[in-house]
């Protein structure tokens, strides 16, 4: 029977990666306080399962690596070995190696074999070091027994009374032996008691067997392996005819029974051609959804079906009474409720707790703090706060960078902290919560804080800010997001090359989010990342341009004002700017961008919506504001093609399509225009 084992591989990868996550989490907790047996046990179990699975599914390298790991863990579990911070460190690194091995197989790529070999040898050295002479595994016994393939074997077999109570059965053993050659059996029934004393669950027979075979002794041993402690067993080679006679003679009183009724009746199970296609281990994105969410969904679909059938009765009627119209209205109201609930419920399926990201931080903080010689306590709150899976995938890396930054640049060394009278252990706090339609993630450290003057000097040095520019506190802090800006005096390999913070900022903005900084010198810094809960739904402001309706994301709108023609100045050709307080803002006429006729052209009759994107502001000129509503974003890329200045489209209540304006894209359009204008002037 050939079964294609590759079909189980995907499950093996998934469970192994999960096991490794558990292992890591437990290892990180081991350090704190006394060692908990259940923790060691579950770490051991994870390694043990991975070893078993990898060997079964043919991943020799993983099996080899986990074997050493498992042995080490087994000793810790049995209390033969102490759990030191050094061993935890090696174990954590082993987790990394295994993870990369599994990923490499899964994605048919490579992993760092050199590092794997180094870690494996560290594990092996550790294993030998702590080994007391007593625990040295003895060489496998029975090696000396080089049994020849002779005439066969004489077997004397007396099961203990209780042998059958472990599910073993003499008949089956005899059948198995018979497969190796010619079997002669002599049964001794002398021990069968009187009927009154007879216990049907016990075995009373003993057997003298003569097996003519060329099978060697270990094959015969294997047959009895499961019962060797539950019987008297001797196995001796057949020498010649006389010897057999000698063996039989003590049995002379008993009735010799032959084994004619024991025929091999083992039918080979029908082998089935494995129809399973050689499933390539393609990775499909999947999410785990709580059963309660699925149940709620099914429940709601059920209600929807009821509402639908209720509404259906009206379709069959030719005339409708006033009372029935009332009923119809109720039905429609119910349909609306059902739809809304269904929408919320479907959205909630994509929502995952932020602990998916937070869970990687304890390890990272552990590694980083030991690397940098800092003592850091990581406090995480609000791990259950949910956000959309797509947002989650994109926010992971920026958050990692911010946490690294807090540890590397925020929290001071223990000595420095002691000098300042702070506790040697620095605190990094990760906090997530919902606020309005947003999720807020805070990264708070109690480190040195940002030095405004130093930031400003640095920016002036680099020519990012002019000498006479006056910046607000917030604006100064935002300087750290400028490309090429880094105040770190020593560039470490952890962070501080000045690439990074600008990328963090850019990523967060591209998700429709924002990041603010609060800082107090010597007290600490708070980075506050604000993100929309989902990328599928957006709070929009509908605006009218000619006969068309457009949607501007509400988060981008700063204000809407009415301006007069004389406030607008013409710069180079057709570029219009107007002065808003101290700032000149370019004006983008949406009707020009989208070539719409019959739109308002005089500033006095329309409205200017001031929006901010990519850190710059522009004024979008529209006919009028209509209203605010939540819209479901339909991607233009998938249905049409990507267009500059447009992030997608949506379907409005009346069935018409409205374009959603991509604000950063619009701002870029304006700057291109600006550049063209400047070039034209030059």
């Amino acid at each position, binding site marked *: 029977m050939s079964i294609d084992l590759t079909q189980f591989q995907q499950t093996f990868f998934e469970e192994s990666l999960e096991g490794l996550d558990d292992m890591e989490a437990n290892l990180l907790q081991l350090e704190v306080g006394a060692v908990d047996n259940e923790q060691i046990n579950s770490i051991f179990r994870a390694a043990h*399962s991975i070893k078993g699975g990898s060997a079964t599914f043919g991943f020799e390298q993983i099996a080899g690596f986990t074997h050493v790991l498992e042995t080490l863990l087994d000793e810790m579990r049995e209390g033969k070995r102490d759990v030191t911070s050094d061993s935890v460190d090696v174990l954590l690194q082993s987790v990394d190696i295994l993870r990369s091995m599994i990923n490499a197989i899964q994605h048919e790529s490579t992993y760092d074999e050199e590092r794997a070999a180094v870690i494996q040898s560290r594990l092996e050295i550790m294993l030998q070091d702590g080994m007391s002479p007593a625990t040295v595994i003895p060489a496998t016994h029975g090696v000396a027994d080089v049994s020849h393939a002779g005439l066969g074997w004489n077997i004397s077999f007396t099961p203990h009374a209780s042998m059958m109570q472990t599910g073993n059965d003499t008949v089956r053993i005899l059948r198995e032996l018979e497969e190796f050659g010619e079997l002669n059996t002599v049964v001794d029934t002398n021990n069968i008691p009187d009927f009154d004393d007879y216990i049907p669950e016990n075995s009373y027979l003993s057997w003298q067997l003569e097996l003519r075979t060329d099978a060697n002794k270990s094959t015969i041993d294997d047959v009895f392996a499961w019962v060797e402690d539950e019987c008297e067993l001797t196995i001796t080679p057949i020498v010649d005819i006389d010897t057999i006679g000698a063996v039989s003679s003590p049995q002379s009183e008993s009735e010799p029974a032959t084994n004619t009724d024991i025929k091999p009746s083992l039918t080979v199970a029908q082998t089935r051609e494995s129809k399973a296609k050689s499933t390539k281990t393609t990775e499909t994105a999947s999410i785990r959804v709580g059963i309660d969410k699925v149940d709620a969904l099914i429940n709601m679909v059920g209600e929807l079906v009821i509402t639908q059938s209720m509404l259906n009765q009206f379709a069959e009627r030719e005339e409708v009474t006033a009372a029935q119209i009332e009923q119809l209205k109720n039905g429609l109201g119910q349909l609306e409720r059902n739809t809304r609930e269904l929408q919320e419920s479907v959205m909630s399926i994509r929502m995952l707790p932020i602990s998916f990201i937070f869970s990687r931080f304890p390890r990272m903080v552990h590694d980083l703090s030991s690397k940098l010689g800092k003592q850091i306590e990581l406090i995480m709150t609000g791990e259950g706060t949910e956000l959309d899976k797509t947002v989650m995938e994109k926010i992971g890396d920026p958050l990692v960078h911010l946490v690294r930054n807090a540890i590397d640049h925020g929290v001071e060394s223990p000595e420095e902290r002691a000098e300042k009278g702070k506790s040697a252990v620095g605190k990094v706090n990760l906090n997530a919560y919902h606020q309005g339609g947003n999720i807020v993630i805070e990264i708070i450290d109690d480190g040195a804080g940002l030095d405004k003057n130093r930031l400003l000097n640095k920016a002036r040095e680099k020519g990012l800010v002019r000498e006479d520019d006056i910046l607000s506190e917030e604006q100064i802090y935002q300087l750290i997001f400028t490309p090429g800006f880094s105040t770190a005096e020593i560039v470490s390999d952890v962070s501080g090359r000045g690439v990074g913070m600008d990328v963090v900022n850019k990523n967060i903005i591209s998700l429709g989010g924002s990041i603010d900084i609060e800082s107090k010198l010597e007290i600490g810094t708070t980075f506050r990342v604000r993100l929309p809960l989902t990328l599928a739904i957006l709070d929009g402001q509908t605006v009218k341009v000619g006969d068309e309706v457009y949607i501007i994301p509400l988060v981008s709108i700063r204000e809407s004002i009415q301006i007069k023609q004389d406030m607008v100045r013409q710069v180079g050709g057709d570029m219009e700017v107007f002065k808003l307080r101290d700032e000149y803002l370019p004006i983008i006429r949406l009707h020009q961008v989208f070539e719409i006729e019959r739109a308002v052209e005089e500033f006095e009759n329309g409205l200017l919506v001031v929006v901010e994107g990519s850190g710059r502001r522009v004024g979008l000129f529209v006919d009028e504001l209509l209203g605010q509503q939540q819209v479901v974003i339909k991607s233009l890329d998938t249905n049409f093609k990507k267009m500059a200045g447009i992030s997608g489209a949506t379907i409005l209540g009346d069935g018409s399509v409205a374009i959603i304006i991509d604000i950063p894209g619009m701002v870029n359009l304006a700057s291109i225009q600006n550049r063209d204008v400047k070039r034209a002037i030059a």
Partner: protein
Amino acid sequence: MTKVLAVDDSASMRQMVSFTLKGAGYDVVEAKDGVEALGIAKTTSFNLVITDVNMPNMDGISLIRELRTLPDYKFIPMLMLTTESGTDKKTEGKAAGATGWIVKPFNPDQLLATIKRVIG
């Protein structure tokens, strides 16, 4: 139809055992640990139990010990899935009432051959 209870905390091993046995015409019920298996075994009767040893909640050896106390399971074959490093486990398992063991790693053919030793 021969009913088999397959117990393992690893989903991939469980799938493999179950798929192999179903292919050979057995009726298989899966359980993910000893506690779940014991619950199932009390309401359904089986002709064979195959269990992993290392599992959370209740390990395979405790499961076998518990099952042997039930009248229906006194003579039912029970096999442990164990690793070669687990010599102590074999002895411990036998003492708890295990019929025998299958050493990991094994392939589907070895599994079927071993099962045929205990049920035919």
